[in-house]
């Protein structure tokens, strides 16, 4: 799984050095290139309007007066997108940051424009060429959403995507569709590809007509949360069609891109991370994990940005760890648990059969020699002498304290287990363990 950082809210394309330095400094190895940075939904919505042209002239003049380079609108001159990002990508190259995914310009969620297909097509064709020139394999192109009715939506999009298929094939680019919502009088409503069964059918049908796997899917977590959808059901139905996931938090009522675990209420997350992790784990997701926290980044002072980016990287790594938790269990020839409480019980419920531990141990001497969930409970001393091929999994929330205890005993093959995002849960928790 590649962890990729969206530069939105972090990097200025006109003065990219510091933002790129922050991303690379946090340990990210790649970015997703958001073409909306050069051609926004607002620009597209007002494309061709007289007032927009006047505004553009005014901005050009202002830029000239201040000696600043002003790019002509990309919606009118798509070939200008590579020049627009020249400086930013130069900084990326200096820091060895790769572009793993690119996202294409799109109309706003509440668009009134039904006449933009030719403009979008020319932008998206240029994006495909640009994608190839950067050695990037994935281009996210959102479905068109301005018609109502599932069949009409499909027909509109079918024609649109297939119109790009040959070019994408020639350039070795996979087009990723993305789940959508639309705004109707200010209210979010599920839109194109929000129904997972329909989305899977769209991708399959497009690939069938393209004669190869030219289309895949990008699962937007924030949009699923905004639409109150089960991410587990979505991921499981979409399965291997999911090539990228846009990871971001939101308040559930407005579109936003926040650092995961920051949108909370009464000590609970507003995004259903349990459902997301369960789903991605179930399908063995191994694609591009795009962290988009543009709103969080935008409100943090640039002085705090390096620390924020380090936390963001740790959060993304945590998701990867949770999704791939079984890979960790597979790594060892045998397993021993540390802890004889609810976490141990949850381990045994979900993984005990597939990855049976040799025994568990606990610091509570009163339970040494007893059995818990079918496991013999031994003292920590029993861990001494276990081979390196036996992983010792700490099943207790006091991870670092126990880790230190074990390291002080000379034990190093230590791993953490976590039961916050288990495939299933008991209806009760044991008390007094």
């Amino acid at each position, binding site marked *: 799984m590649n962890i990729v950082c969206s530069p939105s809210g972090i990097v200025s394309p006109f003065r990219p050095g510091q933002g790129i330095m922050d991303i690379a400094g946090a340990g990210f190895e790649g970015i997703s290139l958001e073409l909306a940075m050069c051609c926004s939904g607002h620009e597209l919505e007002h494309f061709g309007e007289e007032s927009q042209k006047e505004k553009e002239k005014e901005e050009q003049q202002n830029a000239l007066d201040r000696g600043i380079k002003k790019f002509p609108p990309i919606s009118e001159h798509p070939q200008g997108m590579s020049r627009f990002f020249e400086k930013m990508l130069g900084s990326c190259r200096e820091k060895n940051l790769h572009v793993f995914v690119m996202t294409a310009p799109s109309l706003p969620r509440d668009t009134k424009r039904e006449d933009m297909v030719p403009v979008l097509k020319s932008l998206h064709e240029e994006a495909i060429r640009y994608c190839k020139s950067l050695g990037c394999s994935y281009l996210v192109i959102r479905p068109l959403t301005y018609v109502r009715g*599932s069949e009409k939506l499909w027909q509109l999009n079918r024609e649109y995507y297939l119109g790009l298929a040959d070019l994408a094939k020639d350039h070795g680019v996979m087009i990723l569709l993305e789940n959508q919502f639309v705004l109707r009088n200010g209210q979010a409503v599920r839109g194109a590809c929000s129904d997972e069964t329909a989305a899977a059918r769209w991708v399959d049908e497009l690939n069938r007509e393209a004669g190869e796997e030219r289309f895949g899917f990008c699962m937007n977590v924030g949009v699923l949360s905004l639409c109150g959808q*089960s991410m587990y059901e979505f991921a*499981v139905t979409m399965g291997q069609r999911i090539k990228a996931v846009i990871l971001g938090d939101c308040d559930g*009522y407005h579109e936003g891109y926040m650092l995961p675990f920051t949108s909370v*209420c009464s000590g*609970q997350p*507003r995004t259903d991370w349990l459902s997301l992790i369960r789903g991605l784990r179930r399908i063995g997701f191994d694609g591009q994990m795009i962290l988009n926290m543009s709103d969080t980044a935008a409100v943090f002072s640039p002085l705090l940005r390096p620390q924020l980016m380090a936390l963001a990287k740790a959060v993304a790594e945590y998701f990867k760890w949770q999704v791939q938790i079984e890979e960790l269990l597979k790594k060892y020839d045998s397993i021993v648990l540390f802890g004889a409480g609810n976490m141990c019980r949850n381990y045994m419920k979900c993984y005990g059969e597939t990855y049976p531990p040799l025994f568990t141990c606990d610091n509570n001497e009163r339970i040494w020699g007893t059995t818990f969930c079918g496991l013999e409970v031994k003292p920590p001393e029993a861990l001494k002498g276990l081979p390196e091929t036996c992983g010792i999994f700490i099943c207790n929330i006091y991870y670092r304290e126990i880790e230190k205890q074990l390291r002080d005993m000379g034990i190093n093959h230590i791993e953490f287990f976590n039961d916050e995002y288990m495939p299933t849960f008991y209806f009760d928790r044991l008390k007094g363990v």
Partner: protein
Amino acid sequence: MLEIGVQTKNAVEDQNPAEGFRMLKRAGFSCVDFSLNYYLTNKTLYRMEQNHFFDKTRGELEDYFTPHKREAQAAGIRIHQMHMPYPIYMPNGKKELNDYLWNVMAPKSMELCSFFECSYIVIHGFKLAKNLGSEEAEWSETERFIHSIAPMAKEMGITICIENLYSSVGKHIVEGPCCNVGKAVERIDRINDRYGAEVLGFCFDTGHANLARLDFEDFMTRLGHRLKVFHIHDNDGVGDLHQIPFTFTKTRENQPSTDWEGFVRGLRAMGFDKVLSFETAPVLSAFPQDMKEDVLSLIAKIGKHFAGEAGL
């Protein structure tokens, strides 16, 4: 024109059902959604408590509700649908409580539905996805419950209706059971085929759909003839407020934020031919009591407006 209905809760009182039914008739309703859930409330069950209303024998229950049945008929009101008490299963509840809900409350609710000559009873599916791990596993439990009452439904000519529900994550409302229309269609058809009768149908709740951001028109159209009853009400997209349609706006244009146009198109597309029933009991406690009949009249007029717009 389609008939218009409303909940009995907050409108029809046990002490004087005649007055309530007559008021509903005057307000413009010809049908009601009988609030059987009022007699064993969800609030009681969430406290893991159980009252003894359904301990009564079938005869005692029928005696209890005879005035309601008689006065509804006298007022020209038909009991079109009713709501079974919910939840039917408490995940952390004692076995005795869950056995009571499943084996006593549910069958007695079916008997009362038959007693009222009511064709539709709405149930809530179990909310177990978090613990069981998937919606499929959750549905299996709901289906097991449906099979426990489906033979009664067939014998009595009742259609059990599953309803689109919501759940919550950090007070953010998200979809709950029965929000996937494709699955609902498959399950209803499969179960009805098995029984050779329409034992299962769907209750489309507009308020819950708005909270789960469902596309009304698409959902209703795909359900088609399986959609038997409605719970029509409005909210702000944040809380389950059960308010009067057209109440909420979110933009400076002041157009309704709930997609009532899509609702009307859905009615038209599916050729709905039953009752437009409102689940707006909280409105009646919010408005001053001396305005209750005016408020009910407004609700009934909105129902007629929907029917007129849909050309039904």
